């Protein structure tokens, strides 16, 4: 199905061009009609159904799921819907259970590191491990609340979260949690599973966004370039997803084969050297080059030629995403767990202290999490990146007195052929760690017991339980350490008119790439001594000329010759 992607994308563009022309022609026509019928008492109501999102070259599908007897219901729970799905899509369960949305596990082939949400520690809510009752709301399955979850039971797959389009479907924590938290999830209307089941379609942005826009515990908290602003974005926010533009669904780029998606933060293609490939190829990546090719700028000027040359060392994202956390939704850039746990009258509380671009208030303090700093329209950090992240996992030992720990350090350089200069979101956090052993810790945040941090606010007890549950060594002494995590920026691609200009980097002052090493960047770099000597020589010559001319002017006969 993905075989003719390149041709098809041209076809899509062509179709949109035609549609655009038709729309223009039609709007002209309606204007004439309106002008002629201005006395019409009640103009027809404008009906604007949301345009269909583009998920790939094929449109329309071959089945109307509202007509399937299997989906008439009634269903008591999501798992029953899944069983109905699997009764026709017989192989999908086996396909699905291999993907990372199900396993939450990924082993890095280069470093051998065990990665995946199931194991990792991040510098937001820190760890899902042991807190699945809460965190696995975003597991594409039903009921993962502890180690007892059966990862081989395909009836526990959650088809609806990705495929239902009513917008009424939601998920709740898989376990009760502390009463202090569970109140947040009370009083929701019951889900009409049959309606949801009959509404299935290819995943829309809202489906993926249900989790991916809310990573880190809230809208755009984690990624910075993935927020609810992308649910119905204007073209100016994202040139591919814009509803007034191409209106791509996520899977238009994150191409899918047997329910395995291209594009991964664990396995990043920092430089695609294959480009579009031939028809029938390139179903494996979500890189810009897989559609746009290796020479994406039209060579109609010297600048176009130079830009295509830049592809060697500059990731597309670097110029084409000048700022992230745009569209009115802020991202968290700094998190301080040291201040968590303050209570008023024994109860946790929260404070709002930031009003973001779209007018919404954001929490700047929560007893359960600490202090947050938000920012929007952020200029990324830039550095050479070869695509390889090396994680500080629960198994990594470090100097307990280290100033800073990189949750996911990365490498890259000018010399490395796989490296390019990439934009990053930099996330800084003060988070708990094992001061005695020099390791990060699993914190037991979510639970009904009296050690769960959320509700009891005892960090020491929460760490002790979080570590003990998984047989991990804990010295008994925790502290807080500064951590950094790096998020390659790849969404919120602007229309080309808003891309960076040459002078944003090639400038002596405030160059976007001021900190990037390993290159001689014309305009940014110079030999200071040469500039001083050269300027002195030119100025000295000019001064000499003035003196010479002065002597000529004032000497008795000099003015004649």
């Amino acid at each position, binding site marked *: 199905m993905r075989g003719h992607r390149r041709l098809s994308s041209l076809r899509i563009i062509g179709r949109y061009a035609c549609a655009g022309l038709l729309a223009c022609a039609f709007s002209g026509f309606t204007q004439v009609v309106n002008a002629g019928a201005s006395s019409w008492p009640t103009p027809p109501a404008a009906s604007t159904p949301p345009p269909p999102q583009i998920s790939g070259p094929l449109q329309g599908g071959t089945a109307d799921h509202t007509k399937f007897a299997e989906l008439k219901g009634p269903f008591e729970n999501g798992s029953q819907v899944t069983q109905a799905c699997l009764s026709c899509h017989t192989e999908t369960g086996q396909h699905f259970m291999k993907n990372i949305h199900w396993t939450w596990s990924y082993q890095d082939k280069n470093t051998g590191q065990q990665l995946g949400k199931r194991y990792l520690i991040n510098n937001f809510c820190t760890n899902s491990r042991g807190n699945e009752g809460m965190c696995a709301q975003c597991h594409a399955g039903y009921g993962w609340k502890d180690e007892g979850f059966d990862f081989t039971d395909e009836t526990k797959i959650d088809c609806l979260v990705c495929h239902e389009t009513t917008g009424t479907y939601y998920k709740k924590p898989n376990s009760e949690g502390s009463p202090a938290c569970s109140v947040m999830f009370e009083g929701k209307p019951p889900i009409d599973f049959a309606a949801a089941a009959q509404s299935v379609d290819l995943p829309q942005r809202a489906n993926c966004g249900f989790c991916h826009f809310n990573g880190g515990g809230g809208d755009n908290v984690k990624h910075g370039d993935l927020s609810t602003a992308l649910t119905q974005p204007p073209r100016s926010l994202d040139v591919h997803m814009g509803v007034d533009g191409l209106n791509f669904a996520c899977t238009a780029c994150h191409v899918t084969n047997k329910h395995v998606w291209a594009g991964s933060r664990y396995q990043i293609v920092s430089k695609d050297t294959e480009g579009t490939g031939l028809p029938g190829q390139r179903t494996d990546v979500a890189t810009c080059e897989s559609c746009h090719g290796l020479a994406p700028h039209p060579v109609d000027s010297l600048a176009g030629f*130079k830009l295509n040359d830049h592809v*060697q060392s500059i990731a597309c994202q670097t110029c084409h995403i000048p700022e992230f956390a745009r569209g009115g939704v802020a991202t968290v850039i700094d998190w301080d767990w040291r201040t968590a746990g303050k209570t008023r009258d024994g109860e946790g509380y929260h404070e709002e202290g930031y009003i973001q671009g779209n007018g919404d208030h954001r929490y700047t303090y929560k007893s359960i999490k600490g202090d947050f700093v938000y920012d929007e329209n952020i200029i990324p950090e830039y550095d050479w990146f070869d695509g390889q992240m090396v994680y500080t996992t629960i198994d990594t030992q470090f100097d307990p007195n280290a100033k800073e720990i990189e949750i996911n350090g990365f490498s890259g350089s000018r010399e490395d052929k796989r490296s390019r200069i990439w934009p990053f979101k930099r996330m800084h956090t003060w988070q708990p760690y094992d001061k005695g052993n020099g390791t990060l810790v699993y914190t037991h945040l979510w639970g009904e017991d009296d050690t769960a941090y959320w509700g009891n606010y005892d960090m020491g007890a929460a760490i002790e339980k979080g570590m003990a549950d998984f047989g991990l060594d804990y010295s008994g002494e925790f502290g807080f350490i500064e951590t950094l995590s790096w998020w390659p920026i790849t969404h919120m691609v602007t229309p080309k008119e808003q891309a960076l200009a040459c002078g944003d980097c*090639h400038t002596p002052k405030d160059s976007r790439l001021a900190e990037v090493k*390993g*290159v001689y960047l014309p305009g940014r770099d110079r030999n200071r001594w040469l500039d001083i000597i*050269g300027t002195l020589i030119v100025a000295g010559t000019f001064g000499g000329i003035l003196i010479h001319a002065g*002597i000529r002017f004032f000497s008795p006969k000099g003015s004649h010759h």
Partner: protein
Amino acid sequence: MALHHVKIFSGFERFWHWSQMLLIVILLITGFGLHGFHNLLSFETAVTWHTGAALALLLLWAFSIFWLFTTRTWRHFIPTITGLWGVLRYYAYGIFKGERHPYRKAYWRKHNPLQALAYLMLKIVLFPAIWISGLAYLFYFAWRDLPDAPAWLEGVALVHTAAAFAILTFVFIHVYMLTTGHSFREHVMPMVTGFDEVDLTPEEEAYLRKDEPEQIR
């Protein structure tokens, strides 16, 4: 020997001079802009103009070198020390006394020794330094994967910038020299009309009057 109005700068030579002047001015302005000394132009515009002007200048130079050798006029630039000290002494001292310039243009020697030496150095040192480094700069994309390419590029940029400072210095002196005679206009006009006062031998005069009367007034 007598002074005559003789055409010493052919049409091509004048075209060469003035188009070269224009291109060098463009290159200096855009080049120092690219270097970050001013912001009159966007980087993109400056690169485009700088590269376009440089390629045009290289083409012009290709024609001019061909012209120099096919017309034998390259011999005007052979360096000599004969009379060099006289010219140097004049600019350092005599000019303030109202002395007459010691050099008389000859038909096959239209530049004074200092001029000839200066232009020769421009042709064989400064210009090659700037165009060779410039082409290396421009074609960086072709050698960027060689070992230590960024360090080499830095060296190339250093040579290119140093040559640019030197050429700017030359331009200042060159233009100032035009003011040293009777008038600025008198110095510029030969490069406009082609005619200047030249000391002709009787044989040269006879030849010109008989065979190339349009070259002499």
